[in-house]
């Protein structure tokens, strides 16, 4: 007769640690009470995970600090390497965050990056105050510089930091030679050159995500501009660049991706900070050279639809297309000449496109040109999903789109 209970307890330490590694650190530490064998078992777990932490009082702040220091001290004594460090803290206000907690967070990071860390994930948020507080919104904590010395990193996910000042590291040593995943959310670079140097130092990057982040690259920094324009990320398979301000982002660097999510404004060469000038002089806008995306299967575009067809001509293998309007710059595009039905059908539309989703369709005739065009020309399209904008009645859109001739007999149209 077999007794699974006994078998599991006889498993070697490594196996038990594997289970513990999926627990939040607090729970893993609690296993020290199971029996004498387990007192120090949790210390071998190579992950430290402090997530779903809420700090809303001095007491909770002190207790949390005590727990992290205690964990780090126990592990430090044992001298073990650390695979991953994940911090996700919700602060009730910025005072707790930046004055009472962050000085300690920086110390913890300084410790963990010296342990051959592979995965670093730092996220924090501050509860919205009832009134707008310019000090809070303008303030992002400084990114601990020690992170940049951690050359074993395979994935780096950061949220809400600012990288100020010139970083005094030589160009040769900069960057992360093993980094495969880079996710920046609300990261501000005071000097654009630092961002460029960082990105150029990640040659094996596979997954790039830039949300709500920005830098300004001085037009006089020709060296950095040159580096940026010749950026090459040959292993990149996924890129998402949303709501971010970058001057002249080199699309060529994204050309190997299978999945791309982009604000279409990145396709313009004009400096987004100068858009006031361009409203008066629309002719000055020129479009950046779009590379051919040979591997692209899934494309999501936000903002201007004018460039959608142009983009489609550069994605020969595209199977899935998603379009939405961002929150900004809509009025600028509406002032342009109405979108005309494209003359040339992009190759992917006629032979590869299987699903299409278009959001925020409003009342203008010009907005229905694109879905109609796709329905008429996409020969293997299976689903077309359309969402009416908030001012628009779903039935009106449905009336206009349902009778449209469909190139694919099996295509199903859904209007929401």
């Amino acid at each position, binding site marked *: 007769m077999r007794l699974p209970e006994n078998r599991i307890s006889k498993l070697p330490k490594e196996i038990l640690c594997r289970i513990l590694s999926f627990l939040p650190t607090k729970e893993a530490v609690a296993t020290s009470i199971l029996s004498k064998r387990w007192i120090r078992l949790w210390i071998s777990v190579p992950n430290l995970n402090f997530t779903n932490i809420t700090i809303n009082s001095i007491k909770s702040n002190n207790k949390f600090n*005590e727990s992290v220091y205690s964990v780090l001290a126990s592990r430090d004594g044992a001298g073990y390497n650390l695979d991953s460090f994940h911090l996700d803290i919700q602060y009730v206000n910025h005072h707790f965050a930046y004055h009472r907690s962050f000085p300690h967070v920086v110390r913890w990071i300084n410790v963990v990056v010296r342990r051959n860390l592979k995965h670093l994930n730092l996220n924090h948020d501050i509860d919205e105050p009832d009134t707008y507080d310019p000090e809070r919104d303008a303030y992002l904590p400084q990114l601990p510089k020690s992170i940049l010395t951690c050359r074993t990193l395979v994935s780096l996910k950061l949220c809400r930091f600012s990288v100020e000042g010139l970083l005094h590291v030589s160009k040769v040593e900069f960057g992360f030679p093993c980094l495969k995943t880079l996710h920046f959310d609300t990261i501000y670079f005071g000097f654009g050159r630092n961002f460029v140097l960082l990105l150029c130092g990640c040659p094996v990057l596979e997954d790039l995500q830039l949300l709500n982040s920005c830098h300004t690259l001085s037009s006089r920094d020709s060296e950095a501009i040159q580096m940026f324009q010749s950026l090459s990320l040959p292993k990149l398979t996924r890129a998402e660049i949303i709501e971010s301000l970058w001057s002249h982002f080199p699309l060529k660097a994204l050309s190997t991706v299978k999945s791309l999510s982009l604000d279409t404004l990145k396709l313009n060469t004009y400096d987004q900070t100068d858009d006031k000038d361009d409203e008066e002089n629309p002719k000055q806008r020129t479009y950046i050279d779009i590379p051919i995306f040979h591997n692209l299967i899934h494309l999501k575009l936000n903002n201007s639809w004018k460039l959608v067809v142009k983009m489609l001509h550069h994605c020969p293998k595209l199977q899935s297309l998603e379009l939405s309007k961002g929150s900004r710059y809509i009025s600028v595009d509406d002032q342009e000449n109405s979108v005309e039905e494209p003359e040339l059908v992009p190759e992917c539309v006629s032979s590869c496109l299987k699903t299409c989703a278009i959001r925020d369709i409003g009342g203008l005739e010009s907005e229905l040109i694109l879905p109609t065009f796709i329905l008429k020309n996409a020969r293997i399209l299976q689903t077309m999903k359309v969402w009416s904008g908030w001012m628009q009645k779903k039935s009106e859109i449905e009336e206009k789109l349902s009778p449209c001739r469909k190139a694919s007999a099996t295509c199903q149209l859904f209007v929401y």
Partner: protein
Amino acid sequence: MAQEASSSTSSKTISLKTGDGEIFEIEASAAKQMKTVQRLIDDLGDDITIPLHNVFSKELPKIIEYYKKDITGEITKDFEAEFVKDLNDDEVKVLFLAANYLDANKLFEFLSQNIADRLESKSVEYVRKYFGVENDFTPEEESKLREERAWSFRGIKEDE
């Protein structure tokens, strides 16, 4: 049933015999994902029935189901959620031990995560029973340890 002359393993099936004597078939490509099975195939050949002494007829079908989905690349979060939905804690444990024995890495990782999820916030006594651990602390030792690590015990359910 005619076998194709090509050396591709996609149409080949391997016979596995459980500890309680039942025989199951799996695709050769699925067998590759279970390193223990693959080692036995390498040593004994792929045309004989591979004996698995520590895996039984209750759990092997579930494991085969998982790897059937895996070789078609269809394993999604939804599939994994559905896979463990109706399993109780002990059934997951048995599957986990089998995955460990078979050296089936993907299933092992997934079940480790699932066990961790199930044990999160469970009481100390429950976890002891689950892992078959005997409490060898004296009451004094235990309460001293609890005090030292007080912050980690907050929020953990007490036994009913």
